């Protein structure tokens, strides 16, 4: 747990029935430097998870806080979701390499569930700093109630959004009622001129990565980030 800091919870926002966004700063009010796509590891030493758990930063650099958006699915994440403004939490500095390094290519983002979090940061950052870059977002969730940031991201005119729901199929007016397939991605982007980012569960990332490869996408244009526990 080198390079850990106590971060101060500044705000908390309920995103949907089980997901909250927690806004953090260092204790002195500053925000550690980060790049869209990076994550922090959070530690609760009193819980039996010494390695902590990692959460992608969901807002772009340059704001007064850095945010993590957490789906409460277990003891650790529910503990995080229960934090209140003024509470402190132990975390690492931002880290990771899930970001674009080819600004001249289209951005194609494929999110499974709460895997949308790093993409919100990247989309908002790109719209500000490279507004001509084409962005296509594919978001998959079980039900419309599980979608996070949908209202905000689908209202961005420069972002082309595609939604897929695997359950409760009648609950969303624009979603495709099935699992997303790599063919859906290929037919809705310029694959020969795109950089692909996949974030979600291990099986979700694996299946989409493999599907894109099967469609002839070079491995060096696919970047992945999967949720896992030690």
């Amino acid at each position, binding site marked *: 747990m080198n390079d850990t800091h106590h971060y101060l919870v500044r705000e908390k926002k309920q995103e949907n029935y089980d997901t909250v966004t927690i806004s953090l700063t260092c204790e002195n009010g500053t925000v550690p430097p980060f790049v869209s796509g990076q994550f922090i590891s959070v530690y609760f030493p009193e819980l039996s998870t010494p*390695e902590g758990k990692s959460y992608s930063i969901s807002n772009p650099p340059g704001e007064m806080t850095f945010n993590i958006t957490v789906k409460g699915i277990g003891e650790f994440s529910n503990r995080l979701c229960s934090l209140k403004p003024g509470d402190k939490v132990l975390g690492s500095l931002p880290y990771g*390499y899930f970001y674009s*390094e080819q600004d001249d290519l289209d951005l194609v983002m494929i999110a499974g569930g709460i895997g949308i979090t790093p993409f919100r940061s990247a989309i908002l950052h790109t719209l500000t700093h490279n507004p001509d870059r084409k962005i296509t977002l594919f978001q998959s969730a079980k039900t419309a109630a599980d979608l996070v940031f949908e209202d905000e991201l689908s209202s961005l005119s420069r972002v082309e959004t595609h939604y897929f729901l695997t359950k409760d199929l009648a609950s969303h007016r624009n979603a495709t009622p099935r699992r997303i397939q790599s063919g859906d991605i290929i037919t809705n982007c310029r694959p020969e001129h795109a950089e692909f980012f996949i974030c979600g569960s291990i099986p979700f990332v694996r299946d989409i990565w493999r599907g894109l490869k099967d469609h002839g996408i070079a491995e*060096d244009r696919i*970047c992945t980030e*999967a949720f*896992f526990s030690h």
Partner: protein
Amino acid sequence: MTDKTGDVGTWLYSETVREHFFAPKNLLLDEATHKADGVGVVGSPACGDMMAVWINVDPKTARITECKWRTFGCASAIASTSMMSVMVTENGGMLLSRAKRLTPEAIIERLGGLPDRKYHCSVLGHLAIREAIQDYEENHE
């Protein structure tokens, strides 16, 4: 039957994992006299896994010519890093730009699969090579 990039079912490890665990490739036991162009260290002993990677690079071709490593980790971590070191050095060495995008999925596929609960082992290899490349680029460009 093994899923190439997924859980390997009731049989915990593939033959490829077993081979790289029992006979790891490119292992470096003593770095004291080893000269490297870039070094990457990830993980933490407190968390159970730690990995160091040393690379040498041909500056003319921007290809990795050597990748040595050492890890304190489980069989999957050893096999993952061993395979990663093979992938980045085979066929004349991988371009740095390509190695930066060497995903955990690609390492797992070459290993013939890993149980999903061991996915993080391949992430360590992926991060360690990224760290080593970053170290090289910061000191040589």
